[in-house]
């Protein structure tokens, strides 16, 4: 398998820029939405043109951002307004607000898109929202400062990370009970399942590591560490994680290290580090996984990584302190 991938990489490398331009022309129209924590806006980025085409004003301190499964709404957590706003993707108007509980930051939807799970940092709870009725239907008590939210591909297991408790809490979505707690390194920020559900990856910001967890046994099976020449350990802080659908390549955003680590997701070995903007936190793939977009908070920009060539191909200025990014098919 690695040989095939290497061949593919080599091929793209050889064909060079000409193919890149061609591929860009063929790419279907995708749109990225970037939440700007300081500006209180969302930057709308046209992926064909790789430029900001619009800026949407939202509530205060927008951070976590996703699209509804039908693509009709942008969901953005506006923490200082204690709500999640739903923005209509056809009109860019704020269509509704969701009862997220206080200070929402990150959230995740179940695979059907009918249920939304929100981490409430101030309350040590996870709030559960019915997306059809747009009402709160429950909550789960978790550790101190819940942050990262991941859901298994079958929707049966919700994972929440709590930043001061340093755990990944496994929550059965049917009973809404915690069934297991796995201790990870300091300040876990983000949780992501592999598409086949075989592994859960949890990043630790202060610990500077990624724990790979067996979601059945609830055990850490591997720990990924990062070493970048010339950088002190303290500057390497793992935050966002994105794994390709085929489960072969993982990208981990390393915060103030200003780099994204590229990891062989099968062997858990770091392949290379890509230099992006300053304080890189969250990322999103285009639906075809051709590009990965990263939000670089301190440099107010978004880096575009070409997933095939594993190269940063462009940087786009967005609003102030870009935090999260979501990408739609429109």
């Amino acid at each position: 398998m690695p040989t095939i991938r290497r061949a593919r990489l080599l091929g793209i490398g050889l064909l060079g820029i000409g193919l890149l331009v061609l591929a860009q022309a063929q790419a279907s129209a995708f749109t990225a939405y970037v939440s700007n924590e300081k500006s209180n806006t969302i930057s709308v980025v046209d992926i064909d043109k790789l430029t900001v085409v619009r800026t949407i004003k939202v509530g205060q301190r927008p951070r976590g951002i996703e699209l509804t499964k039908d693509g009709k709404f942008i969901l953005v957590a506006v923490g200082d307004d204690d709500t999640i706003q739903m923005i209509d993707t056809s009109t860019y108007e704020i269509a509704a607000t969701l009862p997220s509980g206080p200070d929402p930051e990150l959230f995740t939807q179940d695979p059907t898109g009918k249920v939304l799970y929100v981490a409430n940092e101030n309350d040590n709870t996870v709030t559960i929202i019915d997306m059809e009725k747009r009402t709160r239907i429950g909550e789960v008590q978790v550790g101190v400062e819940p942050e990262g939210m991941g859901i298994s591909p079958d929707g049966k297991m919700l994972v929440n990370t709590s930043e001061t408790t340093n755990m990944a809490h496994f929550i059965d979505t049917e009973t809404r009970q915690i069934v297991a707690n796995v201790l990870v390194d300091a300040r876990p920020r983000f949780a992501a399942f592999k598409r086949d559900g075989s592994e859960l990856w949890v990043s630790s910001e202060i610990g500077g590591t990624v724990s790979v967890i067996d979601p059945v046994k609830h055990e850490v099976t591997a720990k990924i560490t990062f070493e970048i020449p010339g950088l002190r350990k303290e500057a390497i802080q793992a935050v966002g994680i994105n794994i390709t659908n085929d489960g072969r390549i993982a990208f981990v955003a390393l915060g103030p290290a200003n780099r994204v680590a590229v990891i062989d997701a099968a062997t858990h070995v770091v392949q290379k580090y890509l230099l992006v903007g300053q304080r890189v936190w969250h990322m999103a793939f285009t639906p075809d996984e051709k590009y990965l977009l990263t939000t670089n908070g301190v440099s107010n920009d978004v880096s575009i990584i070409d997933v095939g060539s594993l190269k940063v191909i462009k940087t786009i200025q967005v609003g102030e302190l870009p935090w999260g990014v979501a990408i739609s098919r429109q």
Partner: protein
Amino acid sequence: MIRLLLAGAVLFAWMAASADAAETKVVYLRAMEAKARLSLIEIPPDDNGLAGARLAIDDNNTTGRFLNQQFSLEDVRVLPGDDPAAAITTLAERGVALIIADLPADPLLKAADAGRNLLFFNVTAIDDRLREEECRGNVIHVAATRSMLADALAQYLVWKQWRRWFLIVGSHSEDRLYGDALRRSAKRFGARIVQEKVFEDTGGARRTDSGIAQIQRQLPVFTQGASGYDVLVAADESEVFAAYLPYRTWDPRPVAGSSGLIPTTWDASHDQWGAVQLQNRFMKMFGRRMTARDMQAWSAVRMIGEAASRTRSFDPRTLLDFLRGPDFALAAFKGQRLTLRDWNLQLRQPILLSDGRMVVSVSPQEGFLHQVSELDTLGMDRPETKCRLN
């Protein structure tokens, strides 16, 4: 017979409970501190420090709930001038092994020497000697040292190109120690002390009606005639004069040190790196803002919780070994991991520079490099240490 049965029942209940959850008691040992402050809003609350420890016990127990570990806190007070050794002996006999020490330097040393099998967390004393010639293998220092605070300030002033300092030092021994630390920092980072003066404490109350009229006349005259300087740096831990300096200097110059721009481990306005969550939790629980002492006590109890959850132990030796080892990292809302200097058990930490209303900057400043950790540009570094731990 009934009593015996009852005792048996209690014993059984205790055993059943301990089989469920392991429990440990942390003692917050404090000397009642002097509360004299020039600014009314800076008079410390009665539970200064203790409140931070209480919040961290809560945080530890939230984690402990998932690991069957329970923490409790006991507040033990000694009078100023009392030898805490007796209190330590009693606590040791009761099986207490973990002490949050809110004590001045000398009582802390006496306490540490009276309880060699106990593990102490110094959350108050900033004296460098406790980490240098008088370091102890059973005392972890969570409070920053004078030299760390002075270095944090100096780095910023040098970055700002305010290299010419007018240093005013108070007449008490702690003021002189802070003055020494500032002189060392100036030399270390390339600042120059162009003028130096001592402010004699001639006694008198800190709170007087209409005293402000005199202060306004005295301070400009006191600072008159200084040779060309960029910033006035004051060393006044005794709270005698520094708070009077801003806006009253003869020349229009900024003030730093014990007033104006102050180096500190925590500030109620600090909101970066998720700190607002801790500030909110604290405010909700105690109805007041979190002080630096509160933060130091919070960090100390969290260190205990962190080590206990990783080692699944409450044994002080096991906890200490973990805390000084490579796997320990404390998340304390300062943008990077805090770790221990293994040569003297001092907690490495960024230092905030506060103007009393906002955090102006956080040191170490960009560009002050170090081969091990940039945090080691603050305070005494390994090559210069006088500490020899057994």
